């Protein structure tokens, strides 16, 4: 059975170099000591490097620890909790400290939420919208992505001053560096050469949602230095879906001696491009990066491509099965699931679906299903 290395876990837990900084404190420091502007960013794909180049810190809004009450007056009961919690945060006094909100286009719910926020709920808060192409025709999509990125830059420049080409080039290069560092970390894990627990891994990875790359990049190096080692034993699984919440599920996997070998989570592994861009031009590079992202339920890549990728990941990480970790009422993922699951089954790869409401913790029923699933894995 796989047990996380106790000394590694102790190091990760005790050292400030790895523990996730408190978001609020971090944001305050970023503002105070660097004079950075702060943007709330809703889930989706967006050119982070462009915001960095404007000296804006994107803080992503996936599952803020916040009870929804005010958002219920604006969204029906059948709307996903990611949107609900995000809206709650926007309606909260904490949103007053934001210099802007960015809505990358992801799904039907978020597109309307963007309009709701901008036109009716927070008209004084600058809201930016970034449409990602979904067309099945590659050539117009490519050009359009670049135009969208330029358009966003122009809108940002109106408020935050002109884009500095040197900063843009530097931050674009840094985005690639970050991709490579994360890719390397993922490769180590898939190859069984990372000894930290699942909980520690995702707690660390999710820092990418709000840490500035100047801070996060060196952290990755240190994390890697501490965690690199031969991981022994344990069943191996692959995660797919939206985001690793509730975290108790990861702890349960740790307790059961199961190792997450790789993931296709929209919030994590699915954001690492499959290959590094080659272009020297930052605009082109941003497009290359976007189009190299793995197949996603929210885009127009064929289901077959996603299935093939999952199967290849399972094979290369020697995983015994796939756990789909979705969010209640999330249409894009829910549509993909049956085809993916039956495709995996045909390949002899078992799978399980866990649907998260984001605020329930790990229910007894889910824990039982998880245990039963893990028992049948090789």
């Amino acid at each position, binding site marked *: 059975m796989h047990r996380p290395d106790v000394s590694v876990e102790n190091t990760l837990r005790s050292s400030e170099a790895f523990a996730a900084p408190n978001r609020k404190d971090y944001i305050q420091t970023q503002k105070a000591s660097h004079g950075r502007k702060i943007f709330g960013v809703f889930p989706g794909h967006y050119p982070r490097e462009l915001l960095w180049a404007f000296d804006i810190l994107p803080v992503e809004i996936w599952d803020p620890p916040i009870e929804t009450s005010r958002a219920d*007056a*604006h*969204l*029906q009961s*059948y*709307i996903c909790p990611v*949107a609900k919690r995000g809206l709650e945060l926007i309606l909260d006094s904490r949103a007053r400290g934001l210099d802007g909100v960015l*809505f990358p*286009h992801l*799904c*039907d*719910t978020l*597109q*309307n*939420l*963007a*309009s*709701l926020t*901008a*036109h*009716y*709920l927070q008209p004084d808060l600058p809201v930016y*919208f970034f*449409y990602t*192409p*979904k*067309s*099945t*025709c590659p*050539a*117009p*999509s490519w*050009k*359009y992505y670049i*135009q*969208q990125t330029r*358009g966003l830059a122009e809108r940002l420049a109106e408020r935050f001053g002109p884009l500095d080409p040197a900063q843009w080039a530097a931050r674009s290069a840094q985005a690639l560096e970050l991709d490579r560092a994360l890719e390397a970390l993922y490769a180590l894990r898939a190859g069984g050469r990372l000894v930290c627990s699942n909980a520690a891994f995702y707690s660390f990875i999710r820092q990418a949602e709000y840490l500035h790359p100047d801070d996060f990049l060196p952290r990755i190096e240190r994390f890697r230095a501490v965690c690199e080692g031969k991981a022994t034993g344990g069943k191996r699984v692959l995660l797919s879906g939206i985001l690793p919440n509730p975290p108790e599920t990861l702890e349960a996997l740790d307790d059961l001696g199961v190792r997450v070998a790789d993931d296709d989570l929209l919030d994590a592994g699915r954001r690492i491009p499959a290959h590094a861009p080659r272009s020297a031009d930052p605009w082109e590079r941003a497009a290359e990066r976007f189009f190299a992202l793995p197949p996603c*339920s*929210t885009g*127009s890549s*064929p*289901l*077959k491509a996603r299935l093939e990728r999952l199967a290849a990941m399972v094979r290369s990480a020697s995983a015994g099965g796939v756990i789909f970790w979705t969010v*209640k*009422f999330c*249409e*894009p993922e*829910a*549509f*993909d*699931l*049956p*085809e993916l*699951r*039956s495709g995996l089954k045909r390949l002899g790869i078992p799978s399980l679906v866990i649907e998260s409401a984001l605020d329930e913790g790990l229910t007894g029923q889910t824990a039982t299903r998880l245990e039963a699933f893990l028992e049948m894995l090789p």
Partner: protein
Amino acid sequence: MTLLPAIRYRFMKDIGAPAAMRFAKMGKKRPARPPDPLFAPPLAATRRLKELISRHYFLSRYTRGAMPVAWVTSGAPVEILRPFGYYTLYPENHSALCGAQKVGGRMCAHAEEHGYSPDLCSYARIDLGHALTGNTPVGRLPRPDLLFASNNICQTVLYWYKILAARYGIPLILFDTPYRFADAEGGPDLEYMVGQMEAIIQQLEGISGRRFDREAFSRTIDLAKETSLLWGRVLATMKARPAPMTIFDAFAHMLPIVSLRGLESARGYYRLLLEELEERAERGVGAIREERKRLMWDNIAIWPRMREHANLFASHGMAFVTATYTNAWAETTPLLDPGRPLESLAKAYSCVILNHHLEHRLKLMERLIREYRVDGLVIHSARSCKPYSVGQYDIKRLLLERLSIPSVVIEADIADERAYAEEQTRTRLEAFFEALEEE
């Protein structure tokens, strides 16, 4: 296309289908019904409508080998397919028919048995239920050769059509219409959409082995535009007081504008319908016998409850005179311009209500309320349809603030009859009726 199936299709089109329709009509001859105390006599055009739709589904069974079949989303620019000779079918339309016949729940259950979540759009679940089981209670759809979708109505159709593409192993073409978060005209969005159109035409040429006939394309656009204008005039007859038809009628009569757009039969149909409605309006014949209040409907119909709702509202003297949903096919298609086909197509299809920010929607509703002299609004919060439903609570609040328009929200679904709480809905509606009467 091979010769024998083509001959068979031609025969069925010219001789078989008319004969089958005549036969069906004979079989269905019923004694004349006594006049309904709530409604005016049914529209004569309704019979023609039934024929038109039955014929369309009937003929679709003879397409195999005779012509390629495309499954299309209701908001896709179908005009581009017409010159390639595709027989087009609309799964959404078929799902609505299943819903209206109260078999939607059963079809959804088939999809759910295969792992599709009950939280998904019921149009999609019904269609997937059909794709998985191979038949439907309202006829049989021929297997598609091509899937053609546009996300101007929702992203849901993209997720749904990706599954169909995987199951049938056929190409999926998506016409991507960026969500109009701002009002800016033209620019990169338009360029992107026109670029896609050009690429799609090339792709269709490759798939079909036929050259794109630009003249036929312009003619189709002309036809589609005229049909949309006619549909707009059909809806505008409801401005008359009393309104010669209600939205419950319009929900049924919108079938040709959705499914047969760009075809001669749809244009002919709306000419007929318009003539009848204008004549009724002139004579002061109202669709419901006593029109006391005029209402607007927001969101897609609750298909399984159409009849009950029509009776309920009519019994209270409430006439639905406008709806954002039926208006969608009259709102932007008039922008079509045969002289600038691709550009105008892109504009017309991307400007539809569901692809537009909420302030646009609110302004449109304000305009409809004024033009149709609406007293109250019924908001259908449809579990199926996130793009239609997210924002409705705020629209309700704002319409009350801005125009003092009272409204009621009913939580239900478009085609899955299982998602309907009878008692709760009735109580809400009764309270709404009372409030309106007191106005």
